[in-house]
C-alpha cells in the first residue's frame, strides 16, 4: 500500500485529530503489549521479591542473583542445551520430511495422490493430546521413553510444513523443471538444484515455525522426559514455579532465559514469520 494518503501537514483539522488519536492509541497499545516483557526483565533483576513486595519500575539494587540461582542451583545450562538440541534436530528433520513430501504432492502425480494428501492434511486436526496414551505406550514398547529420541519422533513430520512448502513449490514455474528435464536431470536433481533454491523464503518460514514449535512444546516432553537432566525449558520453568513459589525474581529470570533465543531468532526472521502466518491465512 502506498504511503500517499496520509501526511499530517496536509490534513484538515478533524482528520488531523483522528490521525493523532490513532497514533496515540496504537503506540499506547504497543506499550501495553510490550510491558509484560519489560516487567519480566525488571522483576528478574529485583532480588528479594517475595510475597508482598511489588518491584519498583527502576530497581533500587539491581542484581543478577536470580540468574546465579538458576545456573548454579539448578541444571539450567543443561536444560537450555536440551531445548536447543531438540529444536535444532526437529527443525532439520522437518525441513527434509516436509520438502520431500511437498515435492511429491506438487510435482509427482500418482494414483490416489488426492486421498493421500487429504489424509496428510487431516492429521493437522488430530490434537497431540488425543495421542498421549497410545504414544506413551508405543514409545515404552520401543524403550524410548525418557530419551531424546522419544521426545523427537512424534515431531518428525509436520502436516503444516508440508502444506506450506507445497504451496510454495506450486508457485515455482514448471518451465524450470521442464528445461532441467531436457538437460537430462532426474527428479532428485530437479528437487535439489531447482526447487529448493526457489523456495528459500518458505523454507525460512518453516525453519522458524519448526524451531518455535519445538522450543515451546510442553505436554509431550512433560510426559516423555522423566529425569531432570533431560528436561527442556518449558518443563523446567513450570517446575520452577513449584520450587520457588514466591521467588518471582528467579521465575522471571528463567522466563527471560527462555525468551531470549526465540527473540534473537525472531529478530532475524521476523519478515519470514509474519509472511508465513499471513500467507497461511489467505488461502
Amino acid at each position, binding site marked *: 500500500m502506498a*504511503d500517499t*494518503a496520509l501526511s499530517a501537514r496536509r490534513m484538515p483539522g478533524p482528520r488531523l485529530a483522528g490521525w493523532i488519536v490513532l*497514533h496515540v*492509541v496504537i503506540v499506547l497499545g504497543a506499550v501495553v*503489549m*510490550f510491558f*509484560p516483557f519489560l*516487567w519480566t526483565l525488571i522483576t528478574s533483576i529485583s532480588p528479594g*521479591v517475595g510475597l508482598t513486595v*511489588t518491584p519498583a519500575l527502576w530497581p533500587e539494587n539491581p542484581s543478577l542473583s536470580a540468574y546465579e540461582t538458576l545456573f548454579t542451583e539448578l541444571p539450567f545450562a543443561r536444560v537450555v542445551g536440551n531445548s536447543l538440541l531438540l529444536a535444532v534436530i526437529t527443525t532439520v528433520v522437518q525441513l*527434509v520430511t516436509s520438502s520431500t513430501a511437498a515435492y*511429491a*504432492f506438487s510435482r*509427482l*502425480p*500418482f494414483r490416489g*495422490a*488426492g486421498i493421500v*494428501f487429504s*489424509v496428510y492434511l487431516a492429521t493437522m*486436526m488430530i*490434537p*497431540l*493430546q488425543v*495421542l*498421549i*496414551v*497410545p*504414544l506413551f*505406550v*508405543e514409545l515404552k514398547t520401543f524403550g524410548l521413553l525418557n530419551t531424546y529420541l522419544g521426545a523427537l*519422533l*512424534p515431531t*518428525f*513430520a509436520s*502436516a503444516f510444513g508440508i502444506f506450506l512448502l507445497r504451496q510454495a513449490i506450486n508457485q515455482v514455474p514448471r518451465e524450470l523443471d521442464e528445461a532441467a528435464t*531436457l538437460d*537430462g536431470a532426474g*527428479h*532428485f536433481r530437479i528437487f535439489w538444484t531447482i526447487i529448493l533454491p526457489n523456495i528459500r523464503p518458505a523454507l525460512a518460514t518453516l525453519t522458524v515455525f519448526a524451531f518455535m514449535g519445538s*522450543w*515451546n512444546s*510442553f*505436554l509431550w516432553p512433560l510426559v516423555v522426559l522423566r529425569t531432570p537432566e533431560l528436561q527442556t*525449558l*518449558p518443563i523446567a520453568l*513450570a517446575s520452577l514455579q513449584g520450587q520457588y513459589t514466591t521467588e*518471582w525474581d528467579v*521465575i522471571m529470570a*528463567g*522466563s527471560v532465559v527462555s*525468551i531470549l533465543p526465540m*527473540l534473537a*531468532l*525472531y529478530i532475524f526472521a521476523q519478515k519470514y*514469520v*509474519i509472511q508465513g*502466518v499471513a500467507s497461511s*491465512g*489467505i488461502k
Partner: protein
Amino acid sequence: MSLSNAQTSLLDRSRPAARPRTAGSRKRRYALTVLAFLLPSAVPLALFTLGPMVAALWISLHEWNLLSAMRFVGLGNYIDLLGDPQTGAVFLHTLYYIAGYLPLVYVGGLALALALNTALKGRSFLRGIYFLPVVTSWIVVALVWRWLLNPSNGIVNAVLAAVGIQGPGWWTDPAWAMPSIILASAWKDLGFVMVILLAGLQAISPDLYDAAKVDGAGWWRRLFSVTLPLLSPSTFFVFVISLINGFQVFDQVYAMTGGGPNGASEVVVQRIYDLTFRYGAAGEASALSWLLFVVVLAITLIQVRGQRRWVNYG
C-alpha cells in the same frame, strides 16, 4: 484444493528425453521415486499419528491403569464419562475459554489490523512488537501473567489500587481464574490474528473503497459493507484455527492455575492428563480423547459447510 492434475495418468508424464525402456520398468522406477519422496514423512505420520489414533480407540474400550493388565469393558468408559458431571464441567470450562478468547482476539486483532493498514510511521516496527508474544512459549506467557496478575503484589492490582480500585483475586479466585487465562491467551495471540487479517486487508482493492466513498459511505458503512465481507476468508481461517486450538487449550492452564482453584478452570485436556497420570485411568482418558476429537472434527466440518453462507471468496 485442486486434485485434477493428480488424477492425470502416469503415462502422460513420461519424459520424451528418457532413454527407451519398457513401460513396466519406467513405471516401477517412477513409483520408487514417488515412494522415496513420500516415505520420510509418511513413516512418522503413520507411526506416530495415525497408528496411535487407532490404538487410542482400542485402549478406550479397556480399563487400564498403565500398570496392570488391560481389562475389556466395551463402551463402559464412554458411558462412565457421559455420566460423570466432571466431563460436562470440563467441556463447559473449555467453551467458556473459547467464548471469552475468540471475540477478544478477533475484535482486538481486527482493530489493530485496520489501524496498522494505514500509512503509519514505524508500522513494521509496531507490527513486530505486537507479534512478539506469538513467538513466546505458553508456559512463559502463563508465568508472566501469573506474576502480572498476582493478587497480593502483582503490578496490575498495584496499578488498580493506585487509582482506588480493589483488584480481584485473579487466578486465585474461582470466578476470575478463567478470565485471567483468557486475558493472557488473548495477549499472546493478538498479534497472530492481526497479521492474518492485515494480509487479508491488503488484498482488498483500494478501488472498492474509492467507489464506496463516491457513493457517500462513511467509515463504519465502509467497514461493514466492504471490509468485513471481503475479509471473510481471513476471518474464517481465524475462527477455524482458534476453535481447533481452543479445544486443545492446556499449557497455559497447567502453568497458570493447574485447573484450579478447586477445579474452576479445569479444561478437557487437563482432565485427560489427570485421568492418565494422576488417577491411572488411561482407558477413560483415551475415551475422553476421542470424544474431544469427534467434537473438534464436528465443529470444523460444520464451519466448513457453513462457510458458503458467509465467506466471500470473490
